[in-house]
């Protein structure tokens, strides 16, 4: 009996969900392509062509895409309960808090924020 979340019950789909090979191979392909892409993009001076910071932005976008593929499919979050979704999101959300509130200090240091 003792049992778990009655309120959460309907969703334990991950339990016997067996992911098909094509999905795994598809994700794999995305990861490989992403890696190669990110390498070549890094050697092009996008900062000069587009806008300053473009290289960083694109590199991070690719990394994010790769990460999301891994999290959703390799780590089965896509088929998992709401709790797992929330856990994964919370992890990155808290990381964002750490980044944002630390940078909030660094980026506003020095003069200029308050008029003298």
């Amino acid at each position, binding site marked *: 009996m003792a049992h778990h979340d009655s309120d959460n019950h309907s969703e334990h789909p991950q339990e016997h969900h067996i992911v098909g090979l094509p999905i795994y191979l598809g994700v794999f392909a995305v990861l490989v392509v992403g890696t190669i892409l990110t390498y070549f993009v*890094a050697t092009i*001076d996008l900062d*000069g062509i587009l806008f300053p910071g473009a*290289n960083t932005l694109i590199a991070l976008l690719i990394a994010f895409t790769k990460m999301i593929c891994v999290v959703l499919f390799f780590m089965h979050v896509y088929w998992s309960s709401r709790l797992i979704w929330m856990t994964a999101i919370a992890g990155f959300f808290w990381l964002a808090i750490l980044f944002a509130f630390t940078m909030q200090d660094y980026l506003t240091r020095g003069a200029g924020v308050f008029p003298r």
Partner: protein
Amino acid sequence: MATHAPTHAHEYHPPGLQHQFEDMRQQQESASIGMWMFLVQEIMFFGGLFTVYLVFRSRYPMAFAAGSNHLDAFYGGLNTLVLIVSSLTMALAVRAAQMGQRNLQVFLLILTMFFGTVFLGVKAIEYVAKYHEGIVPVAGLNLKTSKELTDSDEHSGTASVPVGRQDPNESLSTAKGEEPGGHKKYVNLRGDFIWNDVSLVVQAQQGNYLTDAEKIGYFANGEISPAKFRDKVQIFFWIYFVMTGLHALHMIIGLGIMTWLTWKAWRGTFSADYYAPVEITGLYWHFVDIVWIFLFPLLYLLGRHFLHGSGH
């Protein structure tokens, strides 16, 4: 829940079910939530380092670019691919476990471990190379030839030891030893970090691309100060070593767990009903992969375009 009728303690106990749980499903669920909580913990653990990276990269982008360019992006990229393959084999191993295919599962686990080991091997090659260049700032270890030493001494002699740490009694930074072939071998006793390439700063200065922090950080009396620049590059490399080092440590731990897992799998412990250990190890391994997915561009690639492009 119908499946959860009140039960008493001493009834049928499936193998692998621990006493505190009522049934396999509860155990499985606990294991996977537990692993996810652990991963959140890991995210924050690496998160502290990423914060450090973020702060310093936004401050000293040129020093970081110089550092990045010095890393071997081929090895980095290769390793990324290796790790991705191992992630795939791990995912397939979990799948094999779910389907109760014992032999396939063992094979895939071994394959995963193989790729994990390749990754660590490549990492070791990189570390050794850095170490011979005097970029691993650990006292008494880096071996350098006299030629290299005189080159680097100009910029990283005693004068550049940070203020407040000078010890008048400390012996000189180097000690000699004869080396066949006429070259003298030196030991970098104090573990000075050796770096003398300021070309990027020069380039950036011409293009006026330096941040405020850099304008103060790399210059002394209006001149580019190689020693001061070197300090910032050293920060980059420390971040590099700490991040990749901790990442490698996680991989080693993962390999250890997988060895145990493979043995268990070989013994046929896992079945379509009970494969939680394989699953959560998989989660762990994928997480380690994700960390690398970020480390690769952040450490190896960003700033690379400074060399290839017009300088902006």
